[in-house]
């Protein structure tokens, strides 16, 4: 009996792998289980390999799980594409369609696991019971129900939901395929494989992708204008808003390019509507000039960058954390902005709200650094019933100015009350040119210094008022793992793992990346003797960035792996192990003595 199980389903185009995965995952979320769903595809635009991986647990799920406990495959030839990401557990159970006749020598898994392969006649059941092999994913669903103890009722409901429009007959055929497979499996594998999950049912959970959660957050924060240009993995934001934004009286624009998209959002925000635009790396590169304009003209703006593997076109369908530098430093001149990073699907919701509040309160551009891993996976999390959201709107100028209205007044905190078109007596010109308090162009050094200071003052306030720092693990930890964004999951999992091995380890995850909450992080680092940076960027962008702003303890290690598949718990733990014991050999320090006591599960 297991409390946590990881399974994958692999097939190609017409196999219905993705819809089977979706049905299963959604059903589990309905029963209050924790679910973590990722999908992966081959390079063909259509009809190529496709797969999904589901982790299911009664307890908190922090990562997709390093190894597969259960694998379902329709044909082995489709599996090649996924060997990198689908590592099999030693005690795994593998189920292959009976029709597959790949010679053993060509099965792309470690030889010693071949005996763990079992056959199920998915296609045959489909053909016989549903009259079409298209229903083989239903046979698979039936097998999963039986093998894993998946919530049967919820699954059947989900199947009904899906097929009810296609008529009673189709639905019945599918349900029969499910039931037949279930019975087949019970007959053949009962007691022979240990794949049963143990859990208690709970209240139905929300189940969505990071992109969807982000859209919800934005909508709730009051966003009523979204402009985007299609790009993987941010297109879903454009598509989601295309459906929902008009319902809320808002507007979504598919702009002609990313520059136009951010320009439209700036225009809408200037005119008083909370506005957002979204993209991935290549679009982010194109938006830098406009982000500088928003910073200079002091216009609230939210920009989402759903990072993918770079540079250039890179690998559009894969994840990476290498847009940190462009988010923080992209743009010529000193152009203050804030950068936030959500740490999981649910947090995409809250980050969007934080982003709008910061943008509005401080009148500057805020960049949300999401990534493919967070944005396209689905997670289940409790519903937000009764949640109260603080919604901030920019400070508006007094209705009756006595003198000429000063849009860029040099107020003590740097945040001068703004006006929006339509407000009488406050006509002003927003400018990207350096300017005096009124907004008239000024080219004196004195004015430039004053205005640079005005704009920069916002940063100090943001990091003090919204430090948004997350730490997990014991306060008096000896070792701190530092990471950001989507690596939160594995870092927290590693902290749990190491702490259960008697180490005192915490992880420190800034959700506000820029301005960096230096004092909050320094506080979290008090007493820490070694810091291990974990990130998914070949050039250590996060480590370099933190170094530039923070004095670090003496012992610093970096695990920086280029993007592609997400970091695994295993690879990071083995790095930590070797880093710390290396240290032991070299210096024999305290932390190392502890490290040598660790019994890593490898």
């Amino acid at each position, binding site marked *: 009996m297991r409390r946590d199980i990881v399974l994958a389903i692999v097939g190609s185009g017409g196999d219905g792998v993705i819809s089977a995965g979706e049905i299963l995952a959604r*059903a589990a979320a309905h029963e209050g289980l924790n679910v973590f769903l990722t999908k992966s595809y081959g390079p063909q635009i259509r009809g190529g390999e496709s797969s999904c991986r589901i982790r299911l647990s009664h307890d908190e799920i922090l990562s997709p799980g390093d190894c597969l406990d259960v694998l379902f495959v329709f044909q082995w030839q489709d599996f090649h594409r996924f060997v990198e990401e689908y590592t099999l557990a030693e005690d795994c159970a593998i189920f292959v369609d009976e029709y597959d006749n790949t010679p053993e020598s060509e099965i792309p898994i470690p030889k010693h696991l071949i005996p763990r392969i079992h056959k199920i006649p998915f296609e045959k059941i489909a053909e016989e019971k549903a009259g079409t092999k298209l229903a083989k994913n239903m046979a698979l669903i039936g097998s999963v129900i039986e093998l894993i103890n998946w919530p049967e009722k919820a699954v059947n409901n989900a199947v009904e939901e899906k097929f009810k429009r296609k008529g009673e007959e189709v639905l019945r055929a599918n349900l029969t395929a499910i039931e037949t497979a279930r019975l087949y499996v019970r007959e053949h594998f009962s007691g022979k494989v240990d794949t049963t999950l143990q859990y208690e049912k709970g209240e139905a959970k*929300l189940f969505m992708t990071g992109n969807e959660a982000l859209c919800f957050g934005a909508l709730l924060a009051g966003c009523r204008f979204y402009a985007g240009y299609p790009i993987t993995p941010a297109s879903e934001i454009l598509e989601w808003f295309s459906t929902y934004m008009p319902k809320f009286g808002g*507007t979504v*624009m598919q702009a002609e390019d990313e520059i136009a998209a951010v320009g439209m959002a*700036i225009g*809408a*925000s200037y*005119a008083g509507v909370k506005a957002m635009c979204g993209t991935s790396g290549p679009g982010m590169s194109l938006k830098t000039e406009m982000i500088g304009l928003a910073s200079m003209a002091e216009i609230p703006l939210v920009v989402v960058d759903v990072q993918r593997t770079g540079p250039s076109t890179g690998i559009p369908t894969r994840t990476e954390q290498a847009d940190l530098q462009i988010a923080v430093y992209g743009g010529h001149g000193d152009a203050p902005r804030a950068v936030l990073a959500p740490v999981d699907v649910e947090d995409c919701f809250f980050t969007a709200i934080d982003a709008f509040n910061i943008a509005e309160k401080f009148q500057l551009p805020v960049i949300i650094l999401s990534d493919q891993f967070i944005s396209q996976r689905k997670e*289940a999390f409790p519903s937000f019933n009764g949640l109260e959201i603080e919604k901030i709107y920019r400070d508006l100028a007094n209705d009756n100015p006595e003198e000429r209205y000063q849009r860029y007044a040099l107020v003590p905190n740097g945040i001068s009350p703004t006006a929006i*078109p339509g407000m009488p007596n406050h006509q002003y010109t927003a400018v990207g040119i350096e300017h005096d308090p009124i907004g008239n162009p000024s080219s004196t050094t004195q004015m430039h210094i004053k205005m640079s200071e005005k704009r920069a003052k916002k940063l100090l306030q943001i990091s003090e008022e919204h430090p948004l720092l997350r730490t997990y693990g014991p306060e008096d930890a000896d070792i701190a793992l530092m990471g950001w964004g989507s690596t939160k999951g594995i870092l927290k999992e590693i902290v749990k793992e190491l702490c259960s091995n008697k180490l005192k380890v915490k992880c420190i995850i800034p959700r506000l990346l820029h301005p960096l909450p230096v004092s909050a992080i320094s506080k979290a680092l008090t007493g820490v003797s070694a810091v291990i940076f974990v990130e998914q960027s070949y050039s250590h962008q996060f480590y370099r960035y933190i170094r530039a702003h923070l004095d670090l303890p003496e012992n610093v290690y970096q695990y920086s792996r280029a993007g592609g598949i997400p970091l695994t718990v295993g690879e990071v733990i083995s790095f930590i192990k070797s880093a710390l014991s290396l240290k032991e050999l070299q210096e024999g320090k305290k932390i190392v003595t502890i490290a040598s006591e660790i019994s890593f599960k490898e």
Partner: protein
Amino acid sequence: MAVATEYKTNLKPVWCPGCGDFGVLAAFTQAFSALGLRKENIVIVTGIGCSSRIAGYLNVYGFNSIHGRTLPIATGVKIANPHLTVIAAGGDGDAYSIGIGHIPHAARRNIDITYLVMDNEIYGLTKGQQSPTSPLGIYSSSTPLGTYERPLNTLEMLLSFNATFVAQAFSGDTKHLVELIIKAIKHKGFSFINCISPCPTYRGGMQIFKDIRAKLRYLDEEERDVSEKELAYRIARTKDYIPIGVIYQEEVDEYERVLEALREKSGAKKEIGLEEVLSTFIA
């Protein structure tokens, strides 16, 4: 109703003496006054260039943005608040070189903004380099041996983009320009005015005003069907004279109206609670 001068700020233009853009500034103020528009309900979005400085000289809401991006910003403004009168303005470099990629899209959306390009056939602010409308063979700071790239015919181009209002003006004739601006603002949808606005400093000296004036032909919009596209093309393509007036105009639903219809179709309701939205995503 405000008189024309009230639409001006007291900022002194940086323009050279004799610059054509003074005429455009005057024309805008007169047109706003004639239309009885409230200052706070007008927004002018400009790019970068001598001509784009005009935003700071008008006592309306302004956005002197960056080079070539007037249209996306103006589009955002108009959509955010359709009650505003939104003008986009800039130079020929701003519009037809770096900014040209936005024009067909603003035109095909038929967003209700008026786009006035101050075309002096040169880059004024950066000191006299060729622009995409510089005629062949002229000497500019970047073409010491004379220009050799064929200039764009911008009127023809706008016609091909299916712009619903295409006109040409001459800033040397403020009165006529005022009339055109009024027509353009009244037009529902995207209205485009190529305003010939000479740069005596870098393109032809004061003489150029005379040269242009000699070639003008005022179009009579009553006399012909302005929605005749073939005729419009013929006028736009003529080499015999410089056509001034409305080249083409047709009625097509403006973008804001289309968006409103879309919202209705989608069942828009302004106030909606968190639960309502989220419920569809409960598994």
